[in-house]
């Protein structure tokens, strides 16, 4: 009923507007068309002017009004660089926006029709064309070089001097969840293959690969602050995208083609709660590539913690090996190696 009424109301408005317009046209027909044309041009020109003024005011006001809800200063090293790049990009485009819109609407207003004059015959001017090709070209070159420097740094290898302390994790996407495998104390992810996957080996790990012995898959993501994190990304079914908005991290998860992204978190979750004055704040992992029905709901929480907290948390985690492939289950695994592994784990943890 309500919707019927609504539609009726809308139809009524349309019919009224239509009738008024038709009547207006008829009046013009009867009266002096030239004068009607002049009035119309004046009205439209004024409307352009007012739209310009109110439009620009609304844009400025709303930008300031909503800016507190924008993402905060990025919590990663490269994110801060990106933000700086964005600032300089805005410095070059915002003035152009205002200048060109003002000229466009300003000219529309200023040069409305006047029957007693002709327009100024001005078909071309190569100097002008040159100026306004050259200036954008130079600005673009600057932006390209700045952008590419950032991009190659972000996508390039982790610097030598930080190689030692990289935390390597692997994000595996499937409809509709993320699973994170940690490389564990040996800092190396074990080999795995889709063909090996089964109930007894949910990640298809190759147990002959020693690097697999300490890998674990926790329910939450914990990462230490100020250590480079290397995320190896893959998918088991369709495309997904590993998206950490607060860190400016985004990379597609592609079945069959492992991808990666490394970043260095710079603010712990607790620090962010303080900065934002929001005790409920959590970092979130989302999916940014359409992957089906529940694409909007592939959430996982991310905790950035101090190094000590991280080590303590690591200790609590049980390796997949111990759950799925430990000797009692899988007799042919060398117990010697197992022991070695244990020792190794202890050494690394105490070293940290």
């Amino acid at each position, binding site marked *: 009923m309500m919707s019927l009424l609504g539609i009726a109301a809308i139809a009524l408005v349309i019919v009224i507007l239509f009738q008024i*317009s038709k009547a207006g046209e008829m009046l013009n*027909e009867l009266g002096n068309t030239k004068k009607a*044309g002049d009035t119309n041009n004046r009205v439209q020109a004024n409307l352009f002017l007012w739209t310009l003024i109110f439009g620009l005011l609304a844009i400025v006001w709303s930008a300031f009004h909503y800016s507190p809800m924008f993402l905060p200063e990025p919590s990663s090293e490269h994110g801060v660089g990106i933000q700086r790049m964005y600032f300089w990009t805005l410095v070059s485009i915002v003035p152009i926006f205002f200048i060109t819109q003002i000229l*466009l609407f300003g000219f529309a207003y200023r*040069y409305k029709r006047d029957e007693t004059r*002709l327009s100024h*015959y001005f078909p071309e001017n190569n100097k002008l064309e040159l100026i306004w090709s050259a200036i954008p070209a130079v600005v673009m070159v600057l932006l390209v070089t700045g952008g590419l420097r950032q991009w190659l740094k972000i996508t390039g290898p982790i610097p030598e001097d930080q190689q030692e302390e990289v935390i390597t994790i692997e994000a595996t996407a499937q409809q509709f969840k993320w699973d994170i495998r940690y490389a564990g104390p040996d800092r190396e992810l074990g080999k795995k293959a889709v063909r090996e996957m089964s109930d007894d080996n949910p990640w298809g790990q190759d147990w002959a690969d020693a690097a697999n012995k300490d890998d674990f898959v926790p329910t939450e993501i914990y990462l230490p602050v100020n250590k480079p994190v290397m995320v190896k990304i893959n998918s088991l079914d369709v495309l997904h995208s590993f998206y950490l908005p607060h860190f400016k991290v985004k990379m597609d998860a592609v079945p*069959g083609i492992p991808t990666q992204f490394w970043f260095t978190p710079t603010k712990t979750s607790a620090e962010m709660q303080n900065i934002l004055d929001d005790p409920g704040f959590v970092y979130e992992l989302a999916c940014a590539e359409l992957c089906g029905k529940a694409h909007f709901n592939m959430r996982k929480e991310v905790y950035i913690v101090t190094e000590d907290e991280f080590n303590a948390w690591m200790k609590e985690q049980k390796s997949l090996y111990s759950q799925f492939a430990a000797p009692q289950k899988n007799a042919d695994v060398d117990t010697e190696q197992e022991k070695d592994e244990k020792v190794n784990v202890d050494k690394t943890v105490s070293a940290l």
Partner: protein
Amino acid sequence: MASTDINIDAHEGHGHDHHDDHHHEHETNFVTHYIFSQDHKMISKQFLITGIIWAIIGVGFSVLFRLQLGWPDESFPIFEYLLGKWGAGGKLDAEFYYALVTMHGTIMVFFVLTAGLSGTFSNLLIPLQCGARDMASPFMNMLSYWFFFAAGVVMFISLFVQTGPASGGWTAYPPLSALQSTSSGSGLGMTLWLTSMSLFIVSSLLGGLNYVATVLNMRTKGMTMMRMPLTIWAFFFTAVLGVLSFPVLLSACILLIFDRHFGTAFYLSDIFINGEPLRNAAGQLVEGGSPILYQHLFWFLGHPEVYIVILPAMGMVSHILATNAKKPIFGYHAMVYSIMAITILGFLVWAHHMFVSGMNPFVGSVFTLFTLLIAVPSAVKVFNWITTIWRGNINFTPAMMFSIGFVSLFISGGLTGIVLGNPALDIGYHDTYYVIAHFHIVMAMAAGYGLFAGVYHWFPKMFDGRMMNNNLGYIHFWITFIGSYCIFWPMHYLGEAGVPRRYFSFAEFNFANGFEDLNVFISVASIVVFFAQFLFVINFFYSILNGKRMRSLNPWGSNSLEWTTGAKGIHGNWEGAIPEVHRWPYDFGKDGYEHIPQTVADKDLKEIKTSERLPSR
């Protein structure tokens, strides 16, 4: 060369033969006149009206999903009424949300803005403005429309299949679009989508080849390339873009069909689904394909596609701005070269859609360079448009209003392209609402304005000298113009907050939550804009039957050839000989004349009665 000549001659002969008795032949036979017509003007009307119907459906879909985004907790009986089980209890099903988004995107980009815009006006204006009696091959032209129509029928049927229409986005990335079990829209719906797209591609190739051939071979005497209106230049390069890039999409679709039905693995590898590794019918593991390959093939069309959509609008806007400002288009040569530059660069930037797809980052760098370079010819065009109205003498016809609106939108949306073309920045904004804001403003809305401008301007050429109601046009313009900024500008703010696109609900994530007021605002604006379009639709159909007739043969004081034909469109366009051209189409305000039609030779200038000489401003 010889063969072309023969073709033209044969064709012209055909045109003349018709002449004497053409009225009988064409008006008595309903089928050849209105349905299987080979007259370019009728075909253009067919494209336009089909496009309008699709636009109502496509924009209607966006209103439906905006209801969901604006009021996620509300239930709307209209969902159940329209969508049945997908809207049970007035709640939109998430799966169907994605179907609506996918259909919205596909319909708007391909059916409305490619066929509806380029199909309509290339058909209408190429022969009329070049001075030809019809297209190079009227028969292929007719086929082009009917393939489009068939594509539409298939797409329309897909809306009603049990498992729902395709729901993998208008980009249809595999494996989601390849594996039926990953989404219910990837079943029959996707098969129909692929079939429909294949038909559509055939249609656009038939059309495009024809446009190129006509522009190159069938211009009237004196119509050198550099005397062509900018509309024709734009249609020409649009057709070139389409002819070179659509086949690549066809190959992408065909490979996808093979992956879906014949057990190949072009796009598939290492997939684990339904609790087991994916095997083909022979029991072998599916390995070795690359989903990224599809993305390359898709965007090799996909990016040129945005220029296919926007170039015709640019051409028409250039022409309309000059005509109604009564001032030559500024920098005609620069405009032509910039269209050319955009066409060439348009082929070299596709991978900017794939910066974070897993593609080699170095490849991304190369594409960045070309992407930001393409900003240069675009900037030149904007500055030239602005200079065109500077010191002009502007008559605000509805077409002129929409053209000015076009320039405003193109600036607003184009500038954020500079942000997104920078791969470092795109990491943050890719697949967020920032992108939605960008491409709707610069492409979707802007091209839509080009369509409106074109219809208001050339309506009398389509419908036997009738005009649309101007006042209704103004109301339509203002609601649409302010409304489209209200819809899409705030989406930048969502983007700044990192809100991803293609989200059925924002409530699951803290960072995406909290924009309830803005989402309601956007939805209200889109409902208003949607209903305002009916002002246009009513005006359009009413004026076909009852529009007032134009007072002179050249109501806007234009210089181009289409206004030298009679008020009533006839088969063959000109009653007598095709006029000869003596100048470019933008002699406005020159030597004291308000406008000098292309058909006037310098020696005949004294005779034109346009006006007494007026002072220049």
